[in-house]
């Protein structure tokens, strides 16, 4: 999975997730980087600052005084026609929140790496998906990396998607804090020339131009606001086939195949697990062992989170008897955590649909063990057997 396939001539290097993202951003030849340090993202911007200061990357590195200003600065730079990158996590994303909406509504093409980290309080620097989920309604395209190779590959592809004239939407690459951001892995990297060919310089649409003055970010009330939002909704929908196109083209260059949803064992699965990020590997490891014992389990992991690959998910899930939806976050007072609600909504109108269980796991960086994954599968089997979901919400490994 995440097919780490070598293509002739590709260099194999050892990098952490953060370093791999920074390397991809350098190869993308960005024009402007504005960011504020926050663990576990910091290494990304440290590396980028080194690239700029050593003359390896010809870009403006703007060390702003807050994440709010980081994203605000990126909005200005993107409107001016620059290829723009930022990175953050957790509290930083929360501080950016207001501008997340503006960045997408003004159709900027900012690419952001989000080293997923739990939201305070208590303060914690390790992985939860709170930050990714907090951005889910804001109009950003979101990818989830499962390993360092994907973090690298998705960063390069994100610029292509965001800047595509049919899309023009900012894009987030999620990588699990510490688990990916700080783990050293081997990965294959493209040459600078290959990246440049795949990702030529940005051709901005309606950039700020003194010869052609335009008003960006006006006031629009009940007579126009509604249509702005509808156009934005269309752009997000349009991005889906564009993402498929970009995946295909990237495969030609890299030999690595990407899809919105990765399926394992789904061809004959009776119960399934749906999961995001680095834990997908653990889920598949457990599924493989269970399948060796003749238990028909499958795993779906999402590389694309927004736009939500609804049809793909329905295609895989509608024939299983029960599915356990794994959330590394919690939505207080909601009828299930965030991924659970997405999937429940996607399946609702299907005649054939599985029973759903929501498993909360790994909050604040707690390890997800194979035993916990197996327990979650067992709960799904129980529901499949009895036709009843005894507990819709289970918390794996909580004391």
């Amino acid at each position, binding site marked *: 999975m995440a097919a780490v396939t070598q293509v002739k001539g590709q260099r194999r290097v050892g990098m952490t997730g953060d370093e791999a993202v920074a390397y991809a951003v350098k190869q993308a030849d960005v*024009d*402007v980087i*504005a960011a504020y340090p926050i663990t576990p993202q910091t290494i990304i911007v440290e590396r980028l600052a080194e690239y700029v200061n050593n003359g390896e990357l*010809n*870009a*403006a590195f*703007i*060390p*702003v*005084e*807050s994440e*709010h*200003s*980081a994203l*605000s*600065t*990126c*909005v*200005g*730079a*993107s*409107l*001016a*026609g*620059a290829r*723009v990158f930022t990175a953050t996590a957790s509290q930083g994303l929360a501080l950016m929140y*207001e*501008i997340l909406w*503006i960045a997408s509504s*003004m159709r900027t093409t900012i690419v952001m790496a989000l080293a997923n980290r739990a939201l305070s309080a208590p303060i914690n620097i390790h992985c939860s998906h709170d930050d990714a989920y907090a951005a889910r309604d804001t109009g950003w395209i979101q990818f989830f990396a499962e390993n360092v190779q994907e973090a690298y590959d998705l960063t390069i592809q994100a610029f292509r998607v965001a800047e595509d004239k049919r899309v023009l939407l900012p894009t987030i690459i999620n990588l699990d804090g510490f688990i990916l951001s700080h783990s050293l892995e081997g990965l294959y990297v493209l040459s600078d020339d290959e990246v440049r060919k795949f990702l030529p*310089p940005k051709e901005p649409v309606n950039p*700020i*131009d*003194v010869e052609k*003055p*335009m*008003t*960006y*970010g*006006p*006031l*629009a*009330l009940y007579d*126009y606001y509604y249509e702005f939002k509808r156009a934005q909704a269309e752009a997000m929908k349009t991005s889906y086939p564009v993402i498929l196109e970009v995946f295909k083209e990237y495969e030609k260059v890299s030999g690595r195949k990407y899809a919105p949803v990765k399926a394992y064992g789904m061809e004959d699965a009776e119960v399934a697990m749906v999961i995001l990020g680095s834990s997908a590997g653990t889920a598949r490891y457990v599924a493989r062992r269970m399948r060796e014992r003749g238990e028909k389990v499958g795993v779906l992991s999402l590389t694309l989170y927004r736009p939500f690959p609804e049809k793909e998910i329905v295609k895989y899930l509608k024939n299983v008897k029960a599915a356990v939806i794994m959330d590394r976050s919690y939505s207080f007072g909601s009828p299930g955590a965030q991924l659970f609600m997405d999937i429940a909504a996607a399946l609702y109108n299907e005649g054939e649909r599985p029973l759903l269980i929501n498993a909360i796991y790994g909050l604040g960086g707690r390890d997800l063990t194979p035993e916990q994954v197996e327990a979650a599968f067992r709960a799904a089997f129980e529901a499949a057997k009895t036709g009843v979901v005894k507990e819709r919400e289970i918390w794996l490994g909580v004391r």
Partner: protein
Amino acid sequence: MVGQVKSIKEIPREELFAPGHRLCAGCGIPPLVRIVLKAVPGPKVVVTATGCLEVATTIFPYTSWRVPWVHNAFENAAATASGIEAAFRILEKKRGVKRPKVIVFGGDGGTFDIGLQALSGALERGHDMIYICYDNEAYMNTGIQRSGATPRGAATTTSPAGRVIPGKMERKKDLLGIAIAHGVRYAATLNPAFPVDMYNKIAKAAAVEGPTVLHYLCPCPTGWRFDPSRTIEVARLAVMTRMWPLYEYEDGKYRITVMVRKPRPIEDYLKLQGRFRHLLQPENKWVLDQLKKDVEEFWERLVKLSSGSE
């Protein structure tokens, strides 16, 4: 000196700020914007914080702006401008794109209060921009709430002239003092009753490479409660009573640009405005006295800083 004029007749006639906007009658903003767009030569981009200027000039699908204009949010005009400036600087190097001058307009709320951090960051990083605060001394766009720029004693909807607390009890923040402490090369106050002084200061700021800060007294008939026909008269009285000293700071030197040797009584300025009317009641004399002390202290400090120069 670049682009300096001696009389209003020398100010260029070209208007880059179109009529038809929805600012109030007598609003102090249009004279500022018109003169700024005349005094800053060459290609320019305007960034505006959320506020009166933004909402009244860009009601979609209309715009008053004949230059590229960007609005992002309330507190981040200086950060947005930083991104535009940095982007054009690098695109000029990489792709030969022509780099415009970046002009920022923020109200006192967007500058003194919610936008102060972003402004501080932009000034410290040294982006090439003219930051102009149009100071109408309260949150006028949301309906006249007090800000860090509201003068002591003024009544606003969140500092009403009550029986126990008669208006705002705190003194006005020294914006230019804060800007100058960042090491900006040029900073100045502006006033619409002194258009030549204003034009020349803007032209000086435009000639500086790096951040400059201009602070404009922006009379607001709606929020200050005076007759819209008296905007310029009110503005002039602010200078003549020393409530609004006109001065500039240039490469380490202060200079009072309109010397007021014999100030008019502050009451002359206050009595024209509903927001100050209660200060003229005998029971509120203690507040008026404090306000007078604020004004006197600031003027004396300025005189000392500028060594009495004219």
